[in-house]
């Protein structure tokens, strides 16, 4: 905040902001390459796991890997790891509301009997 105020008040658009580049997030490109490599490894693991009939565990493994992949994309490709706290709150809010919908509605279904569907 102090740094922000300093550049804000100072008249000469001095040092770092001269070319405007300093505003952008600078992530070393090797982060992207490693992130992609990790995503590929996870893709292979999720595919491999799907060849086995593990009952309930298939879904658990697949979803865990999908969540990790999504996190890698959000944090590094979408720069959330380097974003301001406010942006992170916005990103988290969407997830939070999604969880409300799933937990409350599915909880209601699970707590009752399955609704009778035509043809069942």
């Amino acid at each position, binding site marked *: 905040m102090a740094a922000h*105020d300093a550049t804000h008040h100072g008249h000469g658009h001095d040092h770092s902001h001269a070319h405007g580049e300093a505003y952008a997030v600078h992530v070393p490109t090797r982060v992207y390459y490693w992130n992609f490599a990790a995503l590929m490894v996870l893709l292979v693991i999720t595919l491999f796991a799907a060849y086995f009939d593990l009952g309930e565990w298939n879904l658990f493994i*697949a979803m865990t*890997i999908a969540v990790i992949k999504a996190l890698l994309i959000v944090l590094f490709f979408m720069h959330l790891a380097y974003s301001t706290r406010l942006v992170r709150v916005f990103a988290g809010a969407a997830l939070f509301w999604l969880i409300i919908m799933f937990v409350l509605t599915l909880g209601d279904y699970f707590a009752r009997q399955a609704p009778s569907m035509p043809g069942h």
Partner: protein
Amino acid sequence: MASETVTAGQHAVAEHAADHPHGPAYLHHHFDDVEQQRECTSLGMWSFLATEIMMFGGLFFVYSLYRWLYPDAFHIGSHHLNITLGTGNTFVLLFSSLTMAMAVHFATENNPRMTVICLGLTWILGAAFIGIKAVEWTTDYREGLVPGLNWTYYNHEEGLRELANKPIGPQHVMMYFVIYFSMTGLHAIHMIIGLILVGVFMRYAAKGQFNGGNDQPVELMGLYWHFVDIVWVFLFPLLYLIAGFHPGGLGGGAP
């Protein structure tokens, strides 16, 4: 501290109201400075993505509910999909996210040539995804697996054999395919919009519009592209990899 900031802000507004004598050309007049503009537009994009998450979230909820109700039908349905093409598409889309991240990187580096090249690669990969999806959908159509257009699952002996000794009927398998086409269809619409955006941005980048610190539009478009990628990251295991996939066909080996 707070009041000081406010007065400073008002000062800045008054001073910059006319034409931003001190700001770059891409700084809009209703923002104090580039930093404020960047944070505002970033929040705007994330708010839009939140609405997108809610839209896809509804479909994911429908998926969860019906999979819970008719697990056998989902098991059978998923075995009718081509896992090789699905995996290929996942690879293509993850790769396109890398090229998109690189395009954003080169935009911040004031390198329009590499930005255009990376956007071009992203476009080719995105188009490849749509192409592979089209092949899959055409096959589904020929096999009579498209509810509403060509649904002949009832008539297949194979289909009836799959359903034997299971507490489900063909209409439950149909529900799987309704959900499959709704989700992949909405995703494909997003991909096509993404392709149009990438194409337009290639033109802008070639003209050098993202130079001199105006790289944020590329970053925001990248956020959209990565979001669509994430949706597929969930669709792929949920639709294709339900359980015990057997190479070489319609196993349907649910216990």
